[in-house]
């Protein structure tokens, strides 16, 4: 249901989503475009996920210093505003009216926004319990990390006393820290992989300082409890053996999916691997003048990498505003096993290298010494042994120089292992 009688705003650039990616794009673009750069964020405060990630580690790659999540979020908001961008919070985009116009609900009323350039920066979320098809009762006390951290850091709410954390990624350890702050002890972490996924640097203090045992090759098979959570049943996926762990809190971490609804409703081409919109190395989507950045196109990399997408897209947006010519041609970049996805996933002739000159990939298996190969039409165009592992639960980064010999007028490019 769209409403033609609504007031219309016409910024030069509309950015949907005020997390690290959107705010960085706003900060970079605001001084360079004559008209308005408008950021719409549906939360009460802009800043995205770092707002409620109250531990350090933010800002490394984009700001070259390290700060806490909330401080990082505030920094990005202030910087975007100082650069001249307009940030509207409590502004929910509800519909597309046409290719470049959306409808928005705010407490101040409904409005339309029409912009020649639109950047989607709607981020990603963790799959909740139903999407993971975990059977059992429906007691209170089952959270995703996002829900948990919202409760603890933004609303200062209590959770339980004894928790199990599902997942061994960075975000899983972030959940453990949040639980500790809320006075809730993590008695077990579980991962379906053979080794915990996150950086060794994080794992070691996690296992020794935080003292959390990690059960590998383990999946949740049942949730037990009427009213409050009482226990969770797990299965060892190799032996099939099951056991029950008593706890009153269960945190389901990771298992990311892009918050891609606006992209889907716009009928943009969607990559079957990332499940976000297909983007080229300039971060253009399949709709001319609509760009997509951050964890919407690679769910998920760290906040600083998402932010640097925002910086990368700025030049592409400026080029589009100066000369609105729809791009043409190009070849799809596809991921081969054990990789689940690769981003960006389209290479066009004459386009710039991707952000940070990196292809981002997600692996389903641990590969300690990955020997990466780029193939086109069955021919290996390039291969390289990389000195860092491809590890489940975090992005594996591959130098984009491996694409150098790709013929952008030929068939699909495959990134896999030798």
């Amino acid at each position, binding site marked *: *249901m769209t*409403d033609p*009688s*609504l007031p219309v705003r016409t910024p030069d650039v509309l950015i949907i989503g005020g997390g690290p990616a959107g705010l960085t794009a706003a900060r970079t673009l605001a001084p360079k475009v004559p008209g308005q750069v408008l950021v719409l964020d*549906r*939360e009460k405060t802009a800043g995205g996920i770092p707002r409620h990630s109250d531990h350090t580690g933010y800002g490394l790659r984009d700001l070259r210093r390290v700060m806490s999540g909330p401080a990082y979020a505030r920094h990005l908001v202030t910087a975007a505003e100082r650069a001249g961008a307009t940030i509207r919070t*409590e502004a*929910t985009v*509800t519909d597309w009216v046409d290719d470049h116009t959306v409808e928005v*609900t*705010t*407490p*101040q*009323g*409904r409005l339309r926004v029409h912009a020649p350039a639109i950047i989607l920066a709607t981020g990603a*979320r*963790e*799959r*909740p*319990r*139903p*999407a993971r*098809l975990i*059977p*059992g*009762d*429906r007691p209170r006390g089952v*959270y*995703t990390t*996002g*829900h948990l951290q*919202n*409760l603890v850091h*933004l*609303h200062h*709410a209590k959770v339980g006393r004894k928790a199990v954390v599902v997942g061994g990624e960075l975000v899983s350890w972030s959940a453990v820290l949040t639980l500790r702050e809320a006075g809730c002890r993590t008695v077990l972490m579980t991962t379906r992989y053979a080794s915990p996924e996150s950086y060794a640097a994080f794992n070691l203090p996690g296992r020794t300082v935080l003292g959390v045992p990690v059960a590998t090759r383990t999946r949740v*098979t*049942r*949730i037990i409890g*009427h009213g409050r959570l009482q226990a969770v049943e797990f299965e060892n996926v190799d032996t099939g053996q099951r056991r029950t762990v008593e706890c009153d809190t269960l945190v389901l971490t990771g298992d990311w*999916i892009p*918050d891609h*609804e606006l992209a*889907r409703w716009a009928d943009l081409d969607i990559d079957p691997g990332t499940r976000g919109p297909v983007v080229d190395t300039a971060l253009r989507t399949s709709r001319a003048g609509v760009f997509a950045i951050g964890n919407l196109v690679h769910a998920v990399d760290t906040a600083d990498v998402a932010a640097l997408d925002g910086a990368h897209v700025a030049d592409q947006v400026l080029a589009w505003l100066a000369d609105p010519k729809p791009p043409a041609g190009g070849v799809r970049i596809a991921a081969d096993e054990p990789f689940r996805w690769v981003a960006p996933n389209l290479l066009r002739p004459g386009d710039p290298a991707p952000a940070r000159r990196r292809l981002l990939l997600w692996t389903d298996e641990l590969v300690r010494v990955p020997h990466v190969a780029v193939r086109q039409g069955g021919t290996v165009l390039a291969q390289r042994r990389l000195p860092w592992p491809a590890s489940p639960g975090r992005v594996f980064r591959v130098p984009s120089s491996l694409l150098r010999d790709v013929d952008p007028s030929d068939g699909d490019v495959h990134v896999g292992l030798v």
Partner: protein
Amino acid sequence: MSHPEATGSANNAGPSNNAGSGNSAGSTSQPFDVAVVGGGIVGAAIARELAGYELSIALVEARDDVGDGTSKANTAILHTGFDAKPGTLESRLVRRGYHLLGEYAKRTGIPVERTGALLVAWTPEEFDALPSLAEKARANGYEHCEIVDAAEVYRQVAALGEGALGGLTVPDESIICTWTTNLALATDAVGRGVRLLRNHRVEAVTVAEDATTLHTSAGDVPARWVVNAAGLGADVLDRLFGHDRFTVTPRRGELLVYDKLARPMIDKIVLPVPSKVGKGVLISPTIYGNVMLGPTAEDLTDRTATGTSEGGFEFLLDKGRRLMPRLLAEEVTASYAGLRAAIDHGDFLIQADPTQRYLLVGGIRSTGLTSGMAIGEYVRDLIAEAGLTLVPKAELPDPPRMPNLGEAFPRPYQRADLIAADPAYGSVVCFCERVTAGEIRDACRSVIPPASLEGLRRRTRAMNGRCQGFYCGAEVSDLFTNSRNEATR
């Protein structure tokens, strides 16, 4: 689309005088004329109907909310009754209820979408059964079924899996909001003077000369007449009155609800050809804009086993893969298990026991949603025949105007006029379901306010969406607590 006037707005139901969540009936020394046990759709409809007469009525509910038992987790279809067993009471009451509830929905704003249904045959045996189903529909007084070939089946629902041989159209089957239906009937009942007693679990019964005393977990409730609409507990209550005529077997039905992004795949209810085991697994759009796959049918003994199971999920996914393979590529937003009160009796079991001034309403299956208001009328006539004098009230209040939860009708976040008058309707709190702070506040101020977040979900859709609280869970909890405090101040 059925009734565009089903607009969302503030619930106009007045102050909450009669509907406190825990207030005991103990202060009433005077017995009620009628106590209706069970605040599901059937109990609420009976209480509302009887409240049209000069009677004092209690609606006695064991749980902390109305509609928290079997009524909350059914397939939410407004049935024409085309496939009922002809000649049964169920067939008659479903047919009557279809019209009563359809009309009532228009007046109260219960969202209904007239989607129609398509019954699909996948085997030669099923295909051969279609003419007899069409005949059965006619015997049930439903004339609009039509047998169609495979090409027409795929024209109507292109996303169906391969292998459909033909189908039977049921153009008047519709989808409805079961939560709003229950709440509207109960709110209306309270508006007509019914005393709603939540958290009153009937534990024992004493039948005396002029009044029966229901001994509940929250004190005694005396009443001259007792109507048993206790759903899953109806047989237990029936035995407290000395009867032994049926046993409720909880039949678990598990459901998967898929993301709204799947909704364009299907705009009508896709039914299987019914077999002896039951109605089988259907795929249906939901009134909230999702797609539902289910239910399973599994007889249990535990009446509290509302958990989902690995076997249930596997069964549904396997069915789904064959019925509509593309559906499985979308995310599951929610999974539920509901218990149907199956009984060892082929029909509704509604019988009066005039000597004890007691009336049983048992064996009401998923068709109870559609037939509830007709059951109300039937019970009214039965109880009058059995000796209760009915004097119509000279004046009845208008039925409540319910907040719209239907995706096909305007909701507050879409309404510039409402937002201009009250910014709380522009403050979207639950992003996935687009629920505003204004709606949460209204629910807390309504005649039957929610007692828990679960109750709030059924009144507003808050936290029912794809993120299941990742973004909004903490904010919704806070808002609920604050709104509740304000409403009770």
